[in-house]
């Protein structure tokens, strides 16, 4: 099936990292939880259309880093610039950035008191002021893209984990974001369901969406990523294209991590 371009990226951004402007810039970013220095000197540039996979041991700060991008966490030092807008305490800028950044969570975070369709139309109706009929049509379109249009009138509690995560992806896409953040999207799923969610994400990647994905799924990283980033202890240790990253890890820490995660 021909994929309609579901992101605002230009049509030629189907291949890897086609854009030449930086959509996300993290410049000398630091973050502390009280006295604990959780993110140290993070420097990251993400171009339009680029797909980044972030991996690393638990506690390395990878989720914290992407949660800083849409201000679910606050950074204390350095700059975060998303689509030309700097992330400060200014609420207007935070709202503007959040409209352009979609997020998919490990535990889905669907709204249990709303149907699947209402979950997807809530954002467009109340944040983008889209009329209800148009929001419904867009939502059904995305639900078809993630292959669960028949579940539209069900409640999240009635769906399986894999279906819920796909609804979460559709819900974020209905807002037409320029960037999608994934925070360990498959970590809470059974093995059979992981594949259906990863397939959805691969399909999304092929349309040229800018993605940052924190995950342990190395197969996905090899297929889709333009760059794989390894984080440990709050720092970015290594950042490379997948072949180089998996074939020729530079740092000892990366080698140790890869041997553990690819061993089983």
């Amino acid at each position, binding site marked *: 099936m021909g994929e309609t371009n579901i992101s605002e990226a230009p049509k030629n951004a189907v291949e890897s990292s086609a854009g030449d402007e930086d959509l996300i810039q993290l410049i000398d970013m630091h973050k502390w939880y009280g006295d604990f220095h959780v993110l140290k000197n993070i420097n990251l540039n993400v171009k339009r259309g680029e797909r980044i996979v972030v991996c690393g041991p638990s506690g390395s700060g990878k989720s914290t880093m992407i949660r800083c991008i*849409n*201000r*679910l966490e606050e950074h204390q030092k350095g700059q975060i610039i998303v689509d030309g807008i700097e992330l400060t305490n200014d609420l207007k800028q935070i*709202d503007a950035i*959040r*409209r352009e*950044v*979609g*997020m998919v*969570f490990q*535990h889905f*975070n*669907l*709204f*249990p*008191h709303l149907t699947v369709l209402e979950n997807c139309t*809530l*954002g467009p109706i*109340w*944040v983008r002021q889209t009329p209800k009929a148009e929001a419904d049509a867009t939502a059904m379109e995305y639900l078809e893209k993630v292959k669960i249009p028949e579940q539209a009138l069900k*409640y999240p*509690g*009635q769906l399986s984990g894999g279906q819920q995560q796909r609804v979460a992806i559709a*819900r*974020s896409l209905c*807002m037409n974001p320029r960037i999608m953040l994934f925070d360990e999207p498959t970590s809470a799923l059974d093995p059979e369901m992981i594949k259906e969610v990863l397939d959805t994400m691969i399909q999304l990647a092929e349309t040229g969406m800018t993605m940052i994905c924190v995950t342990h799924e190395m197969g996905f990283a090899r297929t889709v990523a333009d760059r794989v980033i390894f984080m440990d202890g709050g720092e970015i240790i290594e950042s490379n294209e997948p072949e180089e990253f998996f074939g020729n890890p530079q740092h000892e820490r990366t080698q140790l991590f890869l041997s553990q995660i690819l061993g089983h």
Partner: protein
Amino acid sequence: MSEVTQNYVPGTHPDLPAPVGQRGLVLWLRTNLFSSWINTIMTFIGIYLLYLMIPPMLNWAVLDAVVNASSRAECREIGLGACWAFIGNRINILTYGFYPDEEQWRVNLAFVLLLVALVPILFDKIPFRKQGMIYSCVYPFIAMWLLLGGYGLTPVGTDEFGGMMLNTVVGVTGIVFSLPIGILLALGRQSHLPIVKTISVCFIEFIRGVPLITLLFVASTMLNYFLPPGTTFDLLLRVLIMVTLFASGYIAEVVRGGLQAIPSGQYEAANSMGLKYWQSMRLIILPQALKISIPGIVNTFIGLFKDTTLVLIIGLLDVLGIGRSSLADAKWNGLSNEVYVSIAIFFFVACFLMSRYSIYLEGKLEKGHKR
């Protein structure tokens, strides 16, 4: 023993009924009443106690009761049971207090309109719900006009309110207005703005720290000291304000418990979508928090409705106050049981209806989420 099901080809074994001792009434009796020696003994003791209590109660309340008589002496001649005739004789004042007889149709009308106004709020599958809600918002003004008079109706002073009507007015007003105020206080307590948070916390802790009677006394005696001299403030209005504020403090804490039960992921999902604070509260957080809080909220409302009887301490005669004054009548001496039982029935009916509605509401909200 063979591992394969004996005598039937797999897939053809019929569904047989369970043995007699394992199903239906016999099973229920065995597991609930006679499951162990202690339970069996307690069952027999329970049956004996019921035998001691129920027939005499039934005799007193129904079988030997007297419904038509004009004095206690007459009651005694007709039957030895409850003298409900007393209640029948006093029913007008018990219900309407001192409201003028010829204007009591206004109270009846206000009550009927109240029931109509409650329907679109309490039930959602009814036709014309939107118009009904608009009517419900206008109803308080209609009720005020009907009960107080003016603009074409004879004015009736609030000192003439009494009886069940007074309990209902105070209870309904308290319930209806304490819920939104309580929700705002709960949100204020969670706020990051220091002034809002401090005011909310102080208010809630003060309200919960004093008995309702104290607040009623403040309303009836002390408030005049804080207002410019010469201002009179209708006593009933002061009472309504105090009762509402009192209930809203408790509602605030119940709702805060509900808010804390919402997983932080819900707030994060709402924020990451770009929803503003009031939008996320209204669309995402409060619907879930209120659903969880329903048992606590209805519990507070039931308590509030029964607390309305405290107004008799400051001189407003509610149904209990009128009941007790009626006992002073020489013609009907010594009928306190009948009076208190009837008042108890009044409160029980109201509170039981609220309790049943709460269970209905919880069941309705649960259906949407069950697999």
